[in-house]
């Protein structure tokens, strides 16, 4: 039996209600353990691509398989079980600002619990310990009981990474994880993502704005323009001209698929 890809997109097309085309005939396979960087102008469809994979957005046509199971057809509980295996890092961190860091990290585990247990905050001791260990991995152990809104942007993003680590997913989708951070903290956050990839074997798919970061951390690079994949190759074999070409923006600006 051939090796099964971790993420598989088959003829995926996304058309928004207002008629804009977000994605067009995307075919893509990503194997387990890869660190894939998606590059492209804003509005090219990078976000749409990522958000389709865990179905924060529904696609119009095609099929997306996660570890062999179709997320496109999954409903209710099955959908949630597939999502449990996909962690996500957001540009704006998306922490619950008024909750403690620990509680934020523990939200990574909610899909493992029945509803009533989470309602009364009955997380097991092991999970709390797991959350604490995740915080130690990102060097935020001392902030465990601090309220999330008292942390800096970079710290908040690392809490989000600890949340993903606690979730223990097979895949991590990182949607512009460094866009709201300064260069130094950006590098720190990317290191943490790389750590998840190398130490835990998680497959990472990250949208990046910065070519520099993409070059430094990615194994494989996918170029997106106007909702289509225009380049796909190993980072080490990718010449600078490819990036120049993707960012030259011949038709990228016209589609405004993304919110940003």
């Amino acid at each position, binding site marked *: 039996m051939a090796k099964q890809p971790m993420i598989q997109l088959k003829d995926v097309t996304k058309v928004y209600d207002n008629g804009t085309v977000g994605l067009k005939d995307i075919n893509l396979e990503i194997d387990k353990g890869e660190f894939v960087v998606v590059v492209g102008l804003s509005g090219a469809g990078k976000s749409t691509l990522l958000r389709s994979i865990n179905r924060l957005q529904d696609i119009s046509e095609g099929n997306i398989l996660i570890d062999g199971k179709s997320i496109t057809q999954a409903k209710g509980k099955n959908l949630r079980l597939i999502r449990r295996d996909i962690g996500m890092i957001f540009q704006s961190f998306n922490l619950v600002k008024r909750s403690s860091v620990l509680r934020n990290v523990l939200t990574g585990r909610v899909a493992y619990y029945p509803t009533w247990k989470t309602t009364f905050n009955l997380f097991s001791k092991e999970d*709390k310990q797991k959350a*604490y*260990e995740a915080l*130690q991995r990102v060097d935020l*152990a001392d902030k*465990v*009981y601090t309220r999330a809104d008292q942390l800096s942007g970079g710290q908040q993003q690392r809490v989000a990474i600890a949340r993903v680590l606690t979730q223990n997913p097979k895949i991590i989708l990182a949607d512009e994880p460094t866009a709201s951070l300064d260069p130094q903290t950006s590098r720190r956050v990317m290191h943490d993502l790389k750590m998840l990839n190398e130490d835990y074997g998680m497959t990472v798919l990250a949208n990046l704005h910065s070519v520099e970061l993409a070059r430094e951390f990615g194994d494989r690079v996918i170029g997106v323009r106007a909702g289509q994949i225009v380049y796909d190759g190993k980072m080490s074999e990718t010449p600078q001209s490819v990036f120049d070409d993707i960012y030259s923006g011949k038709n990228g600006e016209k589609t405004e698929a993304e919110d940003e």
Partner: protein
Amino acid sequence: MENTMKQLPPKPVDLKKRIYHWAIAIVTIVVIVWSCIGINFGRIKESAGQITGAIFAGIFHPDWSYVYNGSGEDLISQLWETICIAFLGTFISAIISLPFAFWAAHTKHKKWYVSRTGKLVLAVIRSFPEIVLALMFIKAVGPGSAAGVFALGFHSVGMLAKLFSEAIENLETGANEAVSAAGGSKWNIITFATMPNLMPELISNTLYRFDVSIRSASILGLVGAGGIGYPLIIALQYRQWNRVGIILLGIIIMVVIIDWISGWIRKKLV
């Protein structure tokens, strides 16, 4: 690698905060439980369901002959009277409110006690039950909508002047300074700087108060101060449930329309 990890430390307890939170929780629960004692929910009339049904039936099968018959005692005339009471009441209170507002606004006085007393007076006016005021006016001018108008006019001052005074306090002082720098008197400041800046806010607050007054005017009749409340209480007393239903429907439609109009005007103001 996992072995080198530290154990999760226990949550640091802020004892003072925790006692405080528990105290609030306990007091709240005690107050709620205490409130349940002595109010007997078992003594509801058996016919409750039946009456509710009859009222709803009245809403869905209105007695059209009552809606309008030109006698002045019909639904439309009574609703019109209600609107007039609210309109005039709000009109009067807006005028009375202005001086009160300047009295209560703390940015207008150097001495702190002036605005404090103003605010206190307004608080007392607000707390004076509208119904009682209506009854007092009924004794003075006799039952009817005039009593309602006066009651509304005076009662609304409490709330309206408070809103006005807050609007005055929030004004920027730049324009005032410009006028006084040009040698303007206190009166000049008010007419040339304060009022023009204040106008949109005043109109908006007055319209908001009109929304509230419409609701108030529809209950003043319960004590005999005119408007739709009077036929409603009569219908309730004579157990004409259909009539109650249609009156309720009328009030709902009237309030919705007035809310919609005043909302529309307020939106245009901004």
